[in-house]
């Protein structure tokens, strides 16, 4: 395999863990958690500082996850206990994390780890990353089949129903946000070790990347009727990273990437919402089938009554 493809796959594996985290808040809990940008860097800076202090790389992964969970806990508490709107409480946490990350990295915007042992020292990165991502995917899949996992899905779906079950949805929400952010921080932590440094700006755009990957993944798999969320996350990330890498290949500047990400998200979202991008030429047919489907719907409604 040439290095271009390998690096896409490796980065996708790392980012797909982030995407699983974002999937929990965005898709399952339907909570607009923008703190991903902060908690990704948080994971990276915790990992960086621990490794430069001589800790075991694996220990630093675990600690990153715990610290990430704390960030999610904070967002949750702001939202649930202090009744601050979801999007605002996550932005507040994200902004706060910027200072915390800088302080943790000793006031430096960039902390190199090249001279220290990391997860990848003397190991095949692709192998290590596959194992870690696979473990996350298995956990993710199994967790959402448990009773607690169903509660999370239920809250995103219909809070009232979960309250009726006598469940304190506030604490479940806080837990879900902690879980989501621990995934994201884990991913940031691996990223720092993979690229050999932690940077204060490395988390910028994480949220958009996550959204794009989820939307790409779900729009493809929902057509096939396949619903394993972790696979949706992994394949979605792979496709997104590939399209970004290709746009670099065809000569775009790295500084254009954020704009390209945004455009990709817009295109995929609009396809998902209206189907317009592909069906524009068949607009007449579409209208006809719309009318047909609406009449059958009406009949079905009457039949049920």
């Amino acid at each position, binding site marked *: 395999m040439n290095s271009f493809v390998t690096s896409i796959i490796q980065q996708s594996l790392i980012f797909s863990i982030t995407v699983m985290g974002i999937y929990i808040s965005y898709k399952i809990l339907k909570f607009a958690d923008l703190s991903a940008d902060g908690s990704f860097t948080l994971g990276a800076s915790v990992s960086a500082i621990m490794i430069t202090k001589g800790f075991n790389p694996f220990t630093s992964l675990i600690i990153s996850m715990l610290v990430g969970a704390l960030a999610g806990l904070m967002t949750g508490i702001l939202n649930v206990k202090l009744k601050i709107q979801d999007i605002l409480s996550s932005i507040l946490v994200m902004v706060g994390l910027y200072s915390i990350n800088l302080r943790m990295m000793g006031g430096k915007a960039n902390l190199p780890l090249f001279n220290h042992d990391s997860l990848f020292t003397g190991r095949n990165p692709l192998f290590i990353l596959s194992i870690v991502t696979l473990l996350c995917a298995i956990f993710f899949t199994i*967790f959402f*089949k*448990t*009773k*607690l*996992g*169903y*509660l999370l*899905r*239920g809250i995103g*779906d*219909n809070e*009232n*129903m979960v*309250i*009726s*079950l*006598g*469940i*304190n*949805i506030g604490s479940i929400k806080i837990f879900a946000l902690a879980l989501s952010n621990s995934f994201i921080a884990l991913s940031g932590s691996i990223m720092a070790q993979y690229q050999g440094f932690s940077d204060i700006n490395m988390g910028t755009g994480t949220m958009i990347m996550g959204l794009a990957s989820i939307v790409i993944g779900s729009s493809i798999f929902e057509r096939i009727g396949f619903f394993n969320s972790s696979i949706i996350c992994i394949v979605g990330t792979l496709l997104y990273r590939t399209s970004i890498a290709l746009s670099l290949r065809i000569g775009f500047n790295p500084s254009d990437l954020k704009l390209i990400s945004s455009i990709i998200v817009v295109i995929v979202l609009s396809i998902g919402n209206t189907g317009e991008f592909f069906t524009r030429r068949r607009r007449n047919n579409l209208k006809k089938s719309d009318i047909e489907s609406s009449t059958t719907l009406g009949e079905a*409604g009457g039949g*049920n*009554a």
Partner: protein
Amino acid sequence: MLKLSGVSKTFNKGSINEQVVFNNFSMDIDEKDFICVLGSNGAGKSTLLNIISGKVRADGGNIILKDRDVTHDTEHEKCKNISRIFQDPSLGTNPSMTIYENLSMAKNKGKRFGLSFLIDRKDEEYFKELLSTLHLGLEDKLYTPVSQLSGGQRQSLALIMAVIGEPDLLLLDEHTAALDPKTSEIVMGITRDIVEEKGLTTIMVTHNVDHAIRYGNRLVMLHRGNKIVDISGEKKNTLTKEKLLTLFKDMDDKSLFS
């Protein structure tokens, strides 16, 4: 069994929109009562259910449920012993989950929602048996997402889910109001069968005078936060719409039957 004493509730207290809903309202509900609550808009019917279920906190007074003071319990604490069905059919179920998943969650009510698997294959027979009592064919749709069911089917499923854990109290908040007349009759029939079979204590808020007369063993009419009619027993059984009308013929407020 349920005792409301001296309950008062004012919305927007101290503002120009101040609205006194209840002022020193009391009501006793006996075990296995099936109470129909009638009243015009703003009479306090929904607020009454909201106070009982904890969605709205009363300003004063006490609520005793089964010899336990639940006045200061939060909504989810109260919901452990109370089941509730709303007017909107989408509120009682989880639309993206299948019937099987919905029933499994309802069945686990009151137990721990931990890290064990929710879906138990052994439940299939039991669920099919429960659903077949509805005669809606839902027993063959166990693996269909609830979002694909009609409003009547969803309300019926919500009923089954609400009573699967044998709650102390069942609250029905105009649960047939969003359905067409025929479906509404079917769901009311199912409601009566379930309530009678399980012997549940039930409070049903309704706008439908016929339903209020036909179902239940006690009829309460609220007006501006007061009970103006409260009939039960033999009197309730022989009640007709005309008799009910004559009960407040003298009242000038015609909005009662709006």
